[in-house]
């Protein structure tokens, strides 16, 4: 499943595509919600490893507008819940992720992103 936590860790890796190759932009997505156990510490500890703006924009692209544009200094429980929902419970089942720089589209099918490249695209 492509969850936003995974999306936040994927970048375009086409040969020569090294700037503005993250984050990938969702296109034509089908989304499914699956409940996951809320663990505030996990979310809190994961945040330094994630890119906030990329997350907020990705969430918007899949229909979740609950996150503030700027990362707040204080993480209260309500915000952690929203982050949990965005990161862990939204599953992108079908669609694509498109690179803003080189326009390469990575398809998502049955919940799995296909990040394979053709021989000539490999760096």
């Amino acid at each position: 499943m492509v969850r936003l936590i995974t999306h936040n860790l994927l970048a375009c890796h086409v040969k020569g595509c090294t700037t503005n190759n993250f984050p990938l932009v969702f296109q034509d997505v089908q989304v499914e919600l699956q409940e996951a156990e809320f663990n505030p510490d996990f979310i809190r500890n994961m945040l330094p490893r994630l890119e906030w703006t990329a997350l907020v924009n990705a969430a918007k692209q899949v229909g979740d507008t609950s996150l503030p544009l700027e990362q707040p200094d204080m993480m209260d429980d309500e915000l952690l819940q929203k982050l949990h929902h965005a990161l862990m419970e939204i599953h992108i089942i079908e669609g694509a992720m498109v690179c803003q720089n080189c326009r390469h589209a990575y398809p998502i099918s049955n919940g799995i992103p296909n990040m394979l490249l053709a021989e000539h695209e490999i760096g």
Partner: protein
Amino acid sequence: MIPTPDLSHLTRHDLEQVYDPAEDTFLLLDALEQEAGELRKERPMICLEVGSGSGCVSTFLGTILGPIPSLYLCTDINQHATRCTLSTGKQNKITLDPVTCSLTRPLLSRLHHTVDILLFNPPYVPTDTYEASSAQSNADIAGSWAGGTDGMEVTERLLQDVEVSSFTVFWDTVNDVYQHLLSPRGRFYLVALKQNNVPSIRSRMLEDFGLSSQIIIERRAGRELLFIIRFTRTALS
């Protein structure tokens, strides 16, 4: 005893296209079980399995860690494999996040120093280079075992990504030079065969990348002598 993942949902059709867990897989499971106490204590946040195949190993790791929340990223170049990985996780109530790709390519830049547990059971069977590289580009089941010269060609490429040195000459390294996967407390478990020259892998990882290593288990399986090697940034007892 940690139960071996339930794989009863995999069909014969699946197992024609995806590596069926065998002695090497089970040795890796045994090594992880042996390390279970320490792994739980470490509370890993990000686990990454390269070449996850059926999904058996990451599912087992998820079972070991139990309620400790962690992200289980699983890559495989074979689309049938990533599908099986997802379904094996589901079958065993472990959420795995599979990505179809070669090694760690699309994750490399964003996973900088963040992987707490890295698992790799590489295609380690010595074949000729052509067989190994065509198996990788065909992305089929042969890619799960054909390893090229000394069975090390695919492993070499990943070792570069775990910790990259400046003198590397491999075809795909330029972008990777300053990229490093393992977190400061990260552990990397690698399956190797005697013919892969285990002492040389270990000394190179130490000299080139400063990664300490330990053989966790070794076992003979038919004609193969298999090893599980654990690499860390600082020597563990």
